[in-house]
């Protein structure tokens, strides 16, 4: 196994016979009606079935339906696959499949120098070129000379392959995606049986379409074999770790969040209740849950975010694991109810899939700028734990950890994800239920002398007696409560004590954390520190820098509140610490306040994730300035 992989240049297929690559980044692009997402997903699944590590990232047009062929209508799907050490969907594209001029024009800036473009020459008509804003034809004016361009008459060839089938022109045109997929699957040999099987299933009711897709795929595959363009297929190295037993799937962050909620509740022996309201980019979490027919998995689409979290609080009061999922604007509406959950001390998981703000902002761009809101967006002294997920699959583990904390400490927990995790995907083996950590519950059993605010001495959690439990009837609410009895209490000293108690309870959560683990050694001169979706880019940048001999390590935080007990010590071990965030420095500010350390920061607030190279570059410059 190869621990560190620098991005490799793609070999020139004209020259090399057989080659095993460490990794490859392929992007499928075309009009939003071209079936690009499907082709990309299938390619990723095939790669993963072949045992590779896979990260993907889609690229949707901002409008629901822009005019066909325009720049606004381009849809893309990027797949990075390879052996271990793959932690992002890739900085730049090695191979671009472009089904029309707009797709080429939009994605060319992302293509590596000397990268490969496979394009549908039949789509490079005068009309389409004009729609894409090309003054001339880039295939003829030499503007593509820095790339290796392979024009293929995909449209024409597909039409030919499908001749004789009873299809509309639209259906025929739409089949180009499977031609492209077939060609790429020849180039990076994939077990195509899976594709055939999938086509049979998917189009069981429409045999003509099944035939069309089979034929288009075959035509693409055969074209690869027959045409003189590519001398031989390329192999991508396999991550052997993936061969462990289990079901592997390509999972998006949102799907992993939904799964994580369901499995947490099952592990705890509880019902799950999620109250939600649609909002980009969080909607899929509730949509995933709506599919369950399990009577212990409740998804309730509320009339707004306030009702969404309110219903989840009601469910928690009634003994379920309560949850809600939203994005920034929704979180801004939930502050009052979150505060009720804090004072009522109910177990609740609040998921914020961040997007670019402030206000409506840029709903289809990613950002990490809701951290301060999650920490402080409530009136009064209102502490609660905040966690962040690092990768699409880590969304699962983070939600499980959030649920564990919520139940063990009887507290609402905020989980931060973001758009890049939500729609990005990676291959992941779902752990069996008994592989999940054990959950502590505070469900009361003994009714004698029951007090709703008498605390567990270790966790300071209050007992969880729920409607239906006899002999423990009690009333909770948002007014300040007397110490043990939970009765309404306006006393000065009691209030101070309760404020302190709520603080101590949350602070105590850090006792459960594993020791802070720095990747790359605690003796490095510079520590790169991050949280959330920056994980992959920071990790790969660290590895690359270390390969170049730089004294760099990295540390990624899952727990943003309370911070780990040993974090201050960990930070002080390094000559300098660079806090890397897709915001203006929100964690950086918190860490300054906490540790009084003069930390460095690297921020990007452009709606897009860091490239590995950006971090490498910034780190190199910083290292130069260090004494």
């Amino acid at each position, binding site marked *: 196994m190869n621990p560190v992989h620098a991005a490799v240049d793609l070999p020139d297929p004209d020259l090399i016979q057989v080659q095993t690559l460490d990794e490859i980044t392929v992007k499928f692009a075309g009009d939003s009606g071209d079936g690009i997402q499907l082709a990309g997903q299938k390619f990723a699944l095939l790669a993963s079935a072949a045992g590779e590590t896979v990260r993907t990232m889609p690229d949707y047009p901002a409008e629901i339906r822009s005019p066909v062929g325009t720049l606004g209508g381009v849809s893309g799907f990027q797949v990075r696959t390879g052996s271990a050490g793959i932690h992002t969907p890739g900085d730049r594209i090695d191979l671009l499949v472009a089904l029309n001029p707009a797709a080429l024009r939009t994605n060319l800036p992302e293509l590596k120098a000397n990268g490969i473009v496979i394009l549908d020459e039949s789509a490079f008509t005068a009309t389409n070129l004009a729609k894409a804003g090309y003054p001339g034809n880039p295939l003829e004016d030499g503007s593509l000379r820095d790339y290796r361009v392979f024009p293929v008459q995909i449209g024409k060839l597909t039409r030919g392959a499908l001749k004789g089938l009873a299809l509309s022109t639209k259906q025929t045109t739409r089949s180009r995606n499977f031609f492209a997929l077939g060609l790429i699957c020849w180039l990076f040999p994939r077990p195509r049986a899976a594709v055939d099987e999938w086509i049979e299933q998917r189009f069981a009711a429409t045999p003509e379409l099944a035939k069309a897709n089979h034929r288009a795929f075959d035509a693409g595959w055969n074209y690869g074999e027959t045409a003189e363009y590519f001398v031989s297929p390329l192999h991508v190295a396999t991550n052997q770790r993936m061969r462990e037993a289990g079901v592997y799937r390509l999972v998006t962050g949102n799907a992993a969040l939904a799964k994580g909620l369901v499995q947490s509740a099952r592990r705890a*022996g*509880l*019902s799950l*209740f999620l*109250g939600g309201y649609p909002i980009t980019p969080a909607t899929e979490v509730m949509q995933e849950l709506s599919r369950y027919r399990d*009577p*212990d998995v*409740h998804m*309730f689409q*509320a*009339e*707004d975010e*306030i*009702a*969404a979290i*309110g*219903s*989840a*609080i*009601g*469910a*928690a*009061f*009634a*003994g*379920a694991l*309560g949850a809600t999922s939203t994005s920034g604007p929704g979180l801004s509406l939930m502050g*009052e*109810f979150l505060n*009720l959950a804090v004072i*009522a001390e109910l177990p609740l998981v609040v998921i914020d899939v961040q997007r670019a703000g402030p206000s409506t902002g840029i709903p289809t761009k990613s950002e990490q700028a809701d951290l301060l809101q999650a920490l402080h967006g409530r009136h009064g002294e209102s502490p609660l734990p905040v966690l962040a997920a690092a990768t699409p699959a880590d969304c699962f583990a983070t939600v499980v950890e959030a649920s564990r904390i919520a139940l063990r400490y009887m507290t609402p927990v905020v989980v931060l994800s973001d758009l890049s995790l939500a729609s990005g995907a990676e291959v992941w083996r779902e752990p069996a239920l008994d592989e999940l950590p054990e959950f502590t519950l505070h*469900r009361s059993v003994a*009714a004698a002398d029951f007090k709703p605010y008498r605390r567990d001495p270790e966790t300071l959690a209050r007992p969880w007696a*729920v*409607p*239906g*439990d*006899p*002999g*423990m*009837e*009690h*009333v*909770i*609410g*948002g*007014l300040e409560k007397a110490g043990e009895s939970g*009765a*309404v209490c306006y006393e000065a000293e009691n209030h101070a004590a309760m404020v302190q108690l709520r603080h101590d309870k949350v602070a105590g959560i850090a006792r459960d954390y594993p020791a802070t683990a720095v990747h790359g050694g605690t003796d490095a001169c510079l520590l790169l520190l991050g949280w959330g979706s920056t994980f992959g880019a920071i990790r790969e940048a660290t590895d690359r820098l270390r390969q170049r001999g730089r004294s760099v390590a990295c540390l990624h935080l899952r727990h943003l509140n309370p911070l780990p007990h040993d974090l201050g010590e960990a930070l002080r071990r390094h000559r300098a610490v660079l806090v890397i965030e897709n915001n203006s420095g929100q964690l950086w500010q918190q860490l300054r306040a906490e540790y009084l350390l003069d930390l460095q920061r690297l921020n990007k607030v452009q709606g897009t994730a860091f490239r590995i190279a950006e971090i490498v570059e910034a780190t190199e410059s910083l290292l130069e300035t260090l004494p």
Partner: protein
Amino acid sequence: MSQTTVIPAATAELPTPPDRAHFLSGTAPRWCPGCGCFGVLKSLTATYARLGVPRERLVTISGIGCTSRLPYYTGTYGFHTLHGRAPSVALGVKLVNPELSVWVISGDGDALAIGTNHTLHLLRRNPDIKMLLLNNQIYGLTKGQASPTSPLGLVTRSTPYGVADAPINPVNLALAAGASFVARVADTNGAMMEEVFAAAHAHRGVAFVEVLLNCVTFHDGAYAMITDKDTRDEYALAMCPGQPLLYGKQQRKVLVADNGRILALPLAEGEAVPDQALRHDPQAGDAGLAQQLALMGPPDLPCALGIFRQVQAPVYGLDPKPD
């Protein structure tokens, strides 16, 4: 059934027959002396005692307001939530444990100002939840500002020159939201409250009951015409299903419809109820007529009390999802 719900085989001992005190918490209510809330608390706990539901399966959930203090005084599970938000919390409770009997207590500001959205959607969805709207036409807890049910022209602390916008008619709105059970009672009539609360409980689906509530401190006498001994015959009409809509001294006035409008017809001595008299049908094909009845009130027409509508509809969270 949800895994979380602990419904013990043998429930806590119930005094036989359970009396009202068993459903009180023992905390002394803090409402102003004479407040209509006392009567509601009494009728509600008396109803609780009649239902045969053990105390631990009753859940009383409120928002914020004078009226929303009620759960503290019941002996059931309770949740004093946020201003306007009780319906949302109640829905979460009911959906994860359908065995519970869930009661929402709300005020006119709570349910029809900040909480209108949740009230309406609760009624529209038809879960098996009972909602009491304690309508005193004023914000009591914050000391006397206009509410969305305050009558035009009312001088309050926030409307020194009188309320300038027309009030909401809660029953009409509930009907428009599609509520499957809608009723109106007065805080002074304990017997009718108990009867209607029990009917609400028996109804399978959402039940909305407006309680005309007197706030002695900030809007005393709001319903005097409807509840005072001297005037109530003229201004209150108790509806009976299947019966003509009669009121007045010795029930000598009857309602009739005229091209969609409702008129009151006095009956001469000994005159029989005419054929064209409207008959009360809480199960009518649509809620149109009920909505017209809801809009009636002094001085032109009587205020209708009792059950406006009671129809069966798929119950949210109980009946199987459409497939």
